[in-house]
């Protein structure tokens, strides 16, 4: 509810910063206006990219009872424009502006059974939930999937705390997660909370729907930065406004249109609200829908897209194997409101 999500900005001091997994930095912050962070909450913070201020969100991995210590963990994003890179430069003593914890992913107390599912860096949103469920002696299974152990943050700590309740899947060890089996273990009383790549979450959502489980019991948070395809450079055109511009690999279509002076409407900037919707007039390539606003039917129709997260890619058929960036950039011609 909006009232609990009022943005209160404050100073925070970095008191600890160290690597805890491949490309993942654990950062401990001391906020000026401490408040305990509920499980599922995140902070927004101001990052400096090429001398300009921008905003990024990070889940609160851990918070002391009095809220005086907030722990976040940041993965160096592969095609980063610089937000996560900036976070990796932080050292003890540095200060930055952060919000008080914000909540879009609340944990409900009282479900018959819980499944927590973390994929990769999505673990940051799940650690605190796991701790609370453990303290509540709830019936839960904590599933953690990653590419290899070195890249999986907090693995030893989680194993120690959750013991048998933790199930680990590692791609490089041939123990990849089987989503169908996992979802088959859920019943109508089970709540599943997940955070991870959009590909993983889409598959879970489909399995959940097919098994006719309660859709409101499937809870997820999107980090708004992963897709089905690797990001490619592509061209976007708005004939009515005479705009033609190139969206770089590390840039979103929304940002690029804003840079080109188009007056864009938006809110969440992570593919949830649908306010940044644009109409597709013509498409040379395919759309990598990275939002959770459209239904599968709507995504297939490719008549519209959420330009804050979704991208155009060079695939004639829409299959990932058909993507071929060397064939020249995909081109999407759109109309905006």
């Amino acid at each position: 509810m909006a009232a609990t999500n009022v943005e209160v900005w404050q100073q925070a001091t970095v008191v600890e910063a160290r690597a805890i997994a491949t490309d993942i930095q654990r950062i401990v912050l001391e906020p000026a206006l401490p408040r305990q962070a509920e499980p599922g909450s995140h902070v927004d913070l101001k990052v400096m990219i090429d001398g300009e201020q921008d905003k990024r969100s990070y889940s609160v991995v851990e918070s002391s009872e009095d809220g005086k210590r907030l722990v976040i963990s940041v993965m160096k994003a592969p095609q980063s424009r610089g937000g996560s890179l900036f976070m990796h430069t932080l050292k003890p003593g540095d200060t930055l502006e952060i919000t008080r914890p914000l909540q879009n992913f609340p944990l409900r107390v009282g479900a018959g059974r819980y499944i927590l599912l973390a994929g990769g860096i999505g673990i940051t949103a799940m650690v605190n939930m796991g701790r609370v469920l453990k303290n509540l002696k709830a019936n839960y299974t904590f599933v953690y999937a990653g590419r290899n152990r070195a890249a999986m943050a907090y693995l030893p700590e989680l194993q120690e705390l959750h013991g048998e309740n933790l199930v680990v899947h590692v791609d490089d060890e041939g123990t990849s997660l089987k989503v169908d089996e996992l979802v088959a273990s859920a019943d109508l009383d089970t709540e599943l909370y997940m955070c991870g790549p959009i590909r993983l979450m889409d598959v879970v959502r489909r399995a959940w729907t097919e098994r006719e489980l309660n859709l409101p019991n499937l809870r997820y948070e999107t980090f708004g930065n992963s897709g089905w395809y690797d990001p490619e450079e592509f061209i976007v055109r708005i004939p009515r406004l005479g705009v033609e511009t190139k969206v770089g690999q590390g840039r979103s279509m929304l940002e690029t249109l804003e840079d080109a002076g188009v007056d864009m409407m938006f809110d969440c900037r992570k593919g949830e609200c649908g306010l940044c919707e644009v109409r597709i007039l013509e498409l040379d390539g395919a759309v990598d829908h990275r939002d959770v606003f459209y239904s599968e039917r709507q995504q297939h129709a490719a008549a519209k897209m959420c330009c804050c997260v979704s991208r155009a890619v060079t695939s004639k058929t829409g299959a990932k194997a058909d993507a071929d960036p060397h064939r020249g950039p995909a081109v999407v011609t759109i109309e905006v409101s």
Partner: protein
Amino acid sequence: MTAVQSTSSTTNKVLGHPLNAWYVAGWDHEVTRKPMSRRVANRPLALYRTEDGKAVALADACWHRLAPLSMGKTMGKDGIQCPYHGIVYNSAGRCVSMPAQETINPSATVPSFPVVERYRYVWVWLGDPTKADPDLVPDMHQVSSEEWAGDGETIHADCNYQLVLDNLMDLTHEEFVHSSSIGQEELSESDFVVTHDGSTVTVSRWMHNIDAPPFWLKNMRDKFPGFEGKVDRWQIITFQAPSTINIDVGVAKAGTGAPEGDRSQGVNGFVMNTITPETDRSCHYFWAFMRNYRLESQLITTQLRNGVHGVFGEDEEMLKAQQAAIDANPDYEFYNLNIDAGGMWVRRLIERMLEAEGRLVPTA
């Protein structure tokens, strides 16, 4: 024993309320399939029952544009529909239908608060849900016990909830506020004993060999027709943090052993009070008067309820006037008397709860 830090004796005129506590949101019969609105601890709630009869408390503000859900209607097994653009939430506060689009926005939720139904009341917990232990509901078993009969009402009192607690912890006011029914000068003259532990405070007062005031004479005659003579009267006030006060009251024929434990020659009632802060300057005051004699008589139940209604009406008027005077004189402080000992222990226990929540506002 751990050392306890005593807070200053400066007395807050407007005391905050702990959030990690069960508060009564309503009588069981008030909460129905038709949603209702009630503000508890400064938080507007939409209260309703599911098809299975389970009571639900959601924040009374839709996620979308904050329209009050209490103006909406219940839907399906356990849902409620926002009256404005039709978003439907389930009893956990999760959106289950978003009419204008094919998917559901994953952050569309409204807070759903833990609820326990007990002693004919619906209790809600607005603080940390991981601490909402049903065993922490204050003991008010007389309200729903087969060994007790009676009924009660709700007063909407225009004052900080603490003023009601003060009022109930010191009954010497009866002599002045309730002179026509239960007041008598022996109240101020008799001695009282205060005891406390970590979460309760008890004030006991015995008056020996006195005339029964009109209210009690009538009750004695209901049990002992034609009764005349002196009585021993008692008032044993028990506070349970943060805002429940049960008062064991009664009279017995003088010298028949009531103070020693034999109450067979008397009548016994329990005044059950639980006060729910509404805003900083108003509260919902739920009371019931229960008795353990003539259980079969609905007439006596009604007479007692009406009698107490009159008595508490006198309190209500005083409390409202007191709050108005407090607000009109912001530069004057409270002073404390010896008779305030019970009320002062109540304040100290509440202040400790607030401190534990990091919400104790220091007195200005």
